[in-house]
């Protein structure tokens, strides 16, 4: 027969390995981030295993590609939870996938720790109640948008801002919404708000229009490939405004692709890349994969640390027990202290790092929190 009774967790407790799952984009236009995230996770897990594993058990990672597609994410999670019987899932690197899997997680009683899924809806329902099996280690869109706007208005004293954003991206739209809200609340004006569509490579039409509005700062809340292209094109058109962005920016690739154009820009980030504590981690990754570490790597590292902590707290490898432990877990990660709030399943009070790009480097300015 085809009984659809969920049958996860259970027997996993008796085995002597702990299986964890990972999902994310290994193909499609988000593959850069997904690939780095998965690679980093494998590396971190190797280290953990070398150090004796968790509760004396070795850890095994099973990762599946989602192509950035919500439907695929659901399939992958069904497979991870029911067939591979993982005790928790890390990833994915986008909110859409993280939201769509919550039904399966609840059915199978397996927790997910999202890495860079910044949409508030990932962990809470529409009515404000928290989803029992969804967690994350990053701060959320409203926070990031507010930080950027607050910093631009209060610290940099800008009053005229323009926004260029990706209409089709939930991430970009989220940041835009909250940047706009906070910035105007603080007395600034949005002099231009222009959109483009994922996959676009030419932004000169929008930028020409922005140029005419003469903003002091242009907020560019999207990923670094588009950032590089649009920043270069902006400078080409003679735009001299300061550029500002979110956590889609930080990457060595960005510097490579648009070093001059982004000079003097401000970025809201999760951490300070030049922090001496972070360096060894970056170098280890670089040595192992001969690629530069992307932001996702830091966050998946923290997600794993959080998971490790929860298993220890629960003193069990039962998926449900891990989920319970996660909702109060505390851990010190490379992106800051992560204190999961039981009400929101977000890392509360996580401060953002403000970074300025100077001389082709990400220079840490200060920790900054929106009120």
């Amino acid at each position, binding site marked *: 027969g085809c009984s659809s009774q969920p049958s996860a967790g259970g027997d996993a407790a008796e085995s002597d390995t702990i299986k964890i799952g990972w999902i994310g984009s290994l*193909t499609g236009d988000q593959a850069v981030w997904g690939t780095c995230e998965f690679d980093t996770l494998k590396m971190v897990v190797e280290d953990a295993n070398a150090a004796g594993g968790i509760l004396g058990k070795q850890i095994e990672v099973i990762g599946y590609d989602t192509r950035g597609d919500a439907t695929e994410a659901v399939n992958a999670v069904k497979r991870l939870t029911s067939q591979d019987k993982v005790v928790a899932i890390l990833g994915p690197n986008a909110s859409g996938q993280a939201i769509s899997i919550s039904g399966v997680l609840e059915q199978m009683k397996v927790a997910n720790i999202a890495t860079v899924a910044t949409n508030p809806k990932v962990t809470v329902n529409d009515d404000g109640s928290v989803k029992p099996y969804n967690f994350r280690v990053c701060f959320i869109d409203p926070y990031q948008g507010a930080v950027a706007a607050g910093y631009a208005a209060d610290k940099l004293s800008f009053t005229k801002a323009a926004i260029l954003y990706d209409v089709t991206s939930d991430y970009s739209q989220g940041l835009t919404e909250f940047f706009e809200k906070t910035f105007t609340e603080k007395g600034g004006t949005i002099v231009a708000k*222009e959109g483009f569509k994922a996959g676009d490579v030419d932004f000169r*039409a929008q930028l020409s*229009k922005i140029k005419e509005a003469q903003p002091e700062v242009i907020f560019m809340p999207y990923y670094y490939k588009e950032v590089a*292209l649009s920043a270069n094109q902006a400078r080409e058109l003679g735009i001299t405004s300061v550029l500002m962005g979110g956590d889609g920016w930080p990457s060595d690739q960005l510097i490579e*692709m648009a070093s001059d154009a982004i000079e003097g820009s401000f970025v809201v980030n999760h951490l300070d890349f030049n922090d001496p504590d972070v360096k060894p981690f970056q170098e280890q990754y670089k040595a192992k994969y001969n*690629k530069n570490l992307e932001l996702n790597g830091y966050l998946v590292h923290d997600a794993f640390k959080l998971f490790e902590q929860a298993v220890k707290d629960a003193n069990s490898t039962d998926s449900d027990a891990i989920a319970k432990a996660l909702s109060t877990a505390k851990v010190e990660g490379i992106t800051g202290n992560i204190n999961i709030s039981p009400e929101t399943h977000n890392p509360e009070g996580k401060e953002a790092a403000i970074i300025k790009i100077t001389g082709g480097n990400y220079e840490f300015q200060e920790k900054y929190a929106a009120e």
Partner: protein
Amino acid sequence: MIGFIQQMINGLSIGSVYALMAVGYSLVYSIMNFSNFAHGGVIMIGSYIGFFCISLLNFSFPVAFLTAALGSGLLAVVLEKVAYNPLRKRNAPFLYFIISAMGASIFLENIVVATIGPTFRTYPPVFSATPIQIGGLTIGRLDVLMFVISAISLSILVYIIEKTKIGLAIRATSYSSKGSTLMGVNVDKVIFTIFLLGGILAGIAGVLFGMKYTVYPQIGAITMKSFIAAVFGGLGSLQGAVIGSILLGIIETLTSGYISSQYRDLIAFALLIAVLIIRPTGIMGKSNEDKA
């Protein structure tokens, strides 16, 4: 006013990007009567070939350019042999060609992801990045180059197709390959030529693209725009493809600049439909309304 002129320049330059892709695409369409959705994949490969020639093998720019053009030409020919030729031999309907092309496109994109990796790659600077400035207007050097190359390749192709014997054979074959076989045309050779030319154009486009927009596995996706542009202009007509591309570029920028950038594609699409309602075969398309 300056703003408007700048927008026109932007439009023209985006249009010539589309045109560069649309010509190669339209060329294949004009003879095979199907939309070669793998064209974007070939462009992408061309872009990678150029990139590796310059950055890994330290080829000079012209040599790299040539290698990329020939490499893509070769790839297009191989693609034809593998994915289309068997269909052609069986007189399969055009839909099957399209699907085969889609399969090829998925294959190309993902083989690059799986082997070379998904990272973005930046061409080393070949041209001075500083644009030409004329009285407050900016014109990118690469844009000018693209425009010139589109114009040249279009002229050459139009000459070949309309004035030469092989061009005549190409047009005849596009209507009936049985008929032209009976006239002694080596249809395989004609198709080989077409794909080679189309591939070379794709390679050229790929390198220019890579320089302008960086190289990554999905870069071929922009060909969708040139496909639309080719329809705008009238499928199978090379001139139409270029006119459609330039028009689409200008419409897009003017919409972004003066109406709404958020709804740009919606408006461009509405205009496309309007054009097609008035001229069901695009601007330059001949209505090959056959006689009853």
